[in-house]
């Protein structure tokens, strides 16, 4: 059980101000996902929590103790690296047991713990192999095993799935979600640029942009009530449509945001009308790309669409699902 509290955290490399005044309260046992475009500082923030990077100012607390000057190994954290960072000359057993070896545990206890973790992660028959004889998913599991075996209170994941192919990524995503269920008391912080991972795994998502926290909330909160244009555009796939001009002014906003699934088709002319440029038919859904006077809009239609390319379409946003944003790109109440 460990909560993490970040108070006014700043981090600079020379004149580069990477993390700007971040305040964050991560509850014990929570699965938090840091998400944002590349270069937004999400990995730096994770490294600051791990202790591999020192924060420039601010207070970092883990389990209600200030850990600003505590070395990584004493923070009770475990980290899974994007590159797995397995020790190539050590067998899977030694890789998993290395942290225990450093703690000076007796051999028999190390063996017992490593074997237990090996069983949990279905690595039992691979314990004597070297990392180079494992597949990508197995390597990733060994990396997770190293984190589990130490009984760390906090797990930090630095884009752990980005090296895997799409199918394996889905499978590992499920395994990590299962791991979270098996270790309900472990706080997990997960960094990704993939909003699908964020939406599917997180208890709460932290959206970062240029070193600032843009919004913190559950996946559905962020989806339904994004508080800025950035968050609205980042969460959800395909991207939310942003409409400026006359339809927005009508609703007393600079910009309105409408998700692709929140359009209706109208027989009569509407404010938003255009021609169908292109369709993507996925079977369960169809995505229609409509060229209008306010730009290209994406519309989602369940099932197979009957519209033809080049056809003129009149679109009408569903009123209760329209997001209104002001001149500062913030949400209007």
């Amino acid at each position, binding site marked *: 059980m460990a909560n993490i509290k970040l108070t006014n955290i700043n981090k600079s490399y020379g004149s580069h101000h990477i993390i700007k005044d971040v305040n964050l309260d991560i509850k014990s046992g929570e699965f938090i996902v840091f998400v944002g475009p590349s270069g937004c500082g999400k990995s730096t923030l994770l490294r600051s929590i*791990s202790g*591999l990077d020192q924060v420039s100012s601010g207070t970092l607390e883990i389990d209600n103790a200030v850990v600003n000057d505590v*070395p*990584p*190994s004493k923070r009770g*954290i*475990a*980290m899974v*690296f*994007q*590159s*797995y*960072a*397995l*020790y*190539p*000359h050590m067998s899977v057993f030694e890789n998993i047991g*290395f*942290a225990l070896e*450093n*703690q000076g545990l007796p051999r028999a206890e190390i063996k017992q713990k490593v074997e237990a973790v090996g069983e949990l992660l279905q690595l039992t028959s691979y314990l004597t192999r*070297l*990392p*180079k*004889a*494992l597949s990508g998913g197995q*390597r990733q599991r060994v990396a997770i095993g*190293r984190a589990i075996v*130490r009984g760390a209170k906090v797990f930090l994941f630095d884009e752990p799935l980005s*090296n895997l192919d799409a199918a394996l990524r889905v499978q590992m995503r499920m395994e990590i979600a299962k791991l979270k269920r098996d270790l309900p008391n472990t706080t997990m912080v997960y960094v990704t640029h993939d909003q699908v991972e964020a939406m599917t795994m997180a208890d709460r998502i932290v959206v970062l942009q240029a070193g600032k926290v843009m919004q913190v909330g559950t996946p559905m909160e962020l989806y339904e009530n994004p508080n800025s244009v950035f968050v609205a555009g980042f969460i959800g796939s395909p991207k939310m449509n942003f409409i400026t001009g006359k339809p927005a002014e009508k609703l007393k906003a600079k910009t309105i945001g409408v998700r692709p699934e929140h359009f209706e088709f109208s027989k009569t002319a509407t404010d938003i009308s255009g021609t169908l440029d292109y369709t993507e038919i996925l079977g369960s859904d169809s995505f229609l790309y409509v060229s209008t006077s306010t730009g290209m809009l994406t519309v989602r239609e369940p099932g197979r669409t009957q519209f033809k390319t080049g056809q003129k379409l009149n679109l009408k946003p569903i009123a209760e699902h329209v997001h209104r944003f002001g001149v500062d790109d913030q949400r209007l109440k």
Partner: protein
Amino acid sequence: MLKRFSLEPSRIALNLAVLLIIALWTFPTAGLLISSLRDKNDIAASGWWTALSSANVNKKTHLKDMVDQVEKDGKFTISGNVFEGADAVSGKVSAFGTKVQAPGENAAGASAALDGGQSLVVNPDGSYVLSSPTAFTADNSGIRVFYIASQPPRFTLDNYQTVLFSEGIGRSFINSLTVTIPSTIIPILIAAFAAYALAWMKLPFRGLIIAIIVGLLVVPLQMSLIPLLKLYNAAGTFMGAPSKTYLGIWLAHTGFGLPFAIYLLRSYIAGLPKDLIESAQIDGANDFKIFRRVVLPLCFPALASFAIFQFLWVWNDLLVAIVFLGSGPDQLVLTGKLNALLGSRGGNWEILTASAFVTIIVPLTVFFSLQRYFVRGLLAGSVKGG
């Protein structure tokens, strides 16, 4: 498949260059080895590339005299073998003659008519029969016979026995090992620690220290040799140590080897994935542990390549050995001994080639036993795409 064997000009050039290097390296080495295994007379008579073919030598011998004559059916014969006697060689007689101008006048096995009705037959196996219708007297017996013997190739380890046990090469070999092994290990030990610290630990003035070490790479050894010797002698006098000792040369070679060792190992260790080091930090390993359990095993190829460099350089070194060691039999290293042999036994090729081969056998062994670490990718499997 076909494309693989297509003849691109660059590939041809590369292959030719490799072949040329192989030839340049193999021929002298093979020559040295073959020469050192040949009989000293053969070395003087023909080149090493003829070692596998039979050599023809011109010999002469005196036949047995009248004492050994045998009378049978009114004919007198003297029989024997040309290969008997003090100056004998082995082999096969191909031709013989009785005149010095024509040593190969008669083919082996043929009968040659001599003065006074005598005839001589020399068989290929060296046996001869000299026969005469009248009894041999003191005047016409004990005649000289010239013959051409073709000798099969002979190989011998006698040369090695000579140089190792009578010429002092064996002792010098031990001396060279005594100098070289510690002079290789000590700098590796120091440099590996230094390289890790300079690559991964946060130290004040780290960049400056690295710059100084790189600067030391270009200091010529000859420039620092004499000041170093004076310093060592002064320190030795102060601490009551004699001036020419193995410890002195170990320290000297360590000093001369360190800048390159640190430079080489640091670049290698700095190139290890950062994640590995950080992962070990999170796993609770301190710097010493990271060095010992993670970095050291992974930089084995770099250690091996430096060990080869340092070993060969120290093994082949003459200058530092002359300055820091004495020239007595218990301190003279192989290079010094070879130099001395060149002066005293310059004409004895069998001694020089065997000594030279004893000298290169160790570097060859070192190179072939460690060379696989140059090619082996120890990092495979550690990080993405590895």
